[in-house]
């Protein structure tokens, strides 16, 4: 009995990964095929990008601030508070900006996609759409993926900027540091590889958020209860995947650029 359950679970897992890859591939394959749902793309960009702006601004600002607080107190022991700006901007741009932004967007939009598409599945709206001659992968999934990838890129830039500002705010007004010194060290330390790393990550994370959200949504079974389950799973799986992929990309990039 335990053996057969392991067997079943493994089969289910493999089949889920297979269906996930298929959905992602088909949605991407639809990118250049007519009809192109431009209006749906704009709507999704507004929902995901503009809609996430407030939480991204708030998390970015306070993360930068708390980084400055913590690093400054450690650095004070070595008399090196002058490099606070450097530590804040590096941490924000390479790691925290992309990761925190995508975790916030995942909580907000992966769940939103899973519940929206999931409700459409259980109320047969997806079947109705297919019956009316529209491919839901084209009309619903593709715009969400493209919108999330594009918007994650810009949201991350916003988050990076706000994080650096938050660090500046704390360093200057609460820790009494020199403004020029903070910004100078924050800017000077940044090199090309750091920026590339910080801007490549959100593209992958955006893809993960949208494809996982849509995958769990489109595979919802079992009524309203199923919608709740899909929503939770979408957030959990996309968050874990984001952190795992973050590790992989960092390792890879450090391997290439040496920092």
């Amino acid at each position, binding site marked *: 009995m335990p053996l057969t359950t392991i067997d079943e679970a493994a089969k289910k897992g493999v089949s889920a990964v297979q269906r996930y890859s298929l959905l992602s591939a088909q949605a991407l394959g639809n990118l250049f095929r007519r009809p192109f749902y431009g209006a749906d793309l704009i709507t999704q960009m507004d929902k995901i990008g503009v809609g996430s702006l407030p939480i991204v601004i708030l998390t970015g600002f306070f993360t930068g601030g708390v980084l400055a607080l913590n690093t400054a107190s450690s650095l004070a022991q070595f008399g090196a508070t002058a490099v606070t700006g450097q530590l804040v901007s590096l941490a924000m741009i390479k790691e925290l900006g992309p990761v925190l932004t995508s975790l916030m967007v995942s909580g907000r939009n992966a769940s939103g996609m899973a519940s929206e598409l999931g409700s459409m599945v259980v109320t047969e*709206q997806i079947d109705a759409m297919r019956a009316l*001659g529209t491919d839901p992968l084209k009309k619903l999934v593709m715009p969400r993926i493209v919108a999330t990838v594009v918007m994650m890129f810009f949201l991350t830039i916003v988050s990076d900027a706000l994080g650096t500002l938050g660090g500046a705010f704390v360093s200057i007004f609460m820790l009494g540091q020199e403004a020029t010194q903070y910004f100078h060290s924050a800017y000077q330390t940044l090199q090309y590889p750091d920026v590339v790393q910080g801007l490549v990550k959100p593209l992958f994370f955006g893809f993960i958020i949208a494809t996982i959200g849509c995958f769990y949504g489109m595979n919802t079974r079992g009524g309203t209860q199923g919608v709740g389950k899909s929503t939770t799973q979408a957030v959990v799986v996309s968050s874990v995947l984001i952190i795992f992929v973050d590790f992989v990309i960092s390792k890879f990039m450090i391997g290439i650029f040496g920092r």
Partner: protein
Amino acid sequence: MATSEIAPDVSLVQAYPDAPALRFDNVSVGFEGKDVLENISFEVKRGETRILLGPAGVGKSVLLKLANGLIKPDSGRIYVFGFEITSMREEDLYPLRDCIGMVFQESALFDSLTVRDNVGYRLAEDHLPEDEIDRRVAQALCFVELDHTMDKYPSELSGGMRRRVAIARAIVSRPSLILYDSPTGGLDPITSTTIIELVIKQRDVYKTSSIIVTHRLQDAFMIVSHRFDCNTNKMEPLPPNQTDPQTSFLILHQGRLAFDGSTHDLIHSDDPFLKEYLS
């Protein structure tokens, strides 16, 4: 009402003019190891209306989804206007689905769109001009006598109104085959009668081929025993002992087709199951 409306891609429907509108050939399907339909074979000729009866959970909705290619059978073949759809790819099915209207059991209206956008969905997808969409949506809503609900959302409508909007959405593109899934399910008798009247109107005015799923015998017999009078815009009973010749029955029982034939054959059948079912 204007009859000059062009149905979408009539050429597809007429590609095999001698083929029936729909043909099931030994179709079986199951879910998670449980057989739902076994070796189902039947035909819907052009212009014919088939009433599909059967207890709840027997697989009536599954059969309609098979007919539209929304699910694939495990074995057997399904032909729509002569095209074998079981081996077709999803993207090749879309043009064919433009010729089929489907009314889902729970209406399945898009709840984020207004009634106007729901009914005009297919027209908007075909990039028809806005005023043309408005005109045809108004016409379809007029057919189901809901002209005043254009700007409402589905959540603001009653169950019967939603069902009628779903019918309007199915007929707006002048399909050549309509699949009605339990159009009267869960409705009060008066609303049911208005829905049945619409189904009869569609059958008698446009002569569309259709399958009507129901588990209510009284609805089925109302469909065969009434005709639509265009002059009074009402349905009226046929003379006693007369039934609509284009309408016949299919009965599903435990995954199999228990009956396939005319109203006369059904009433005079000696099959003990049918006798029990009809009594």
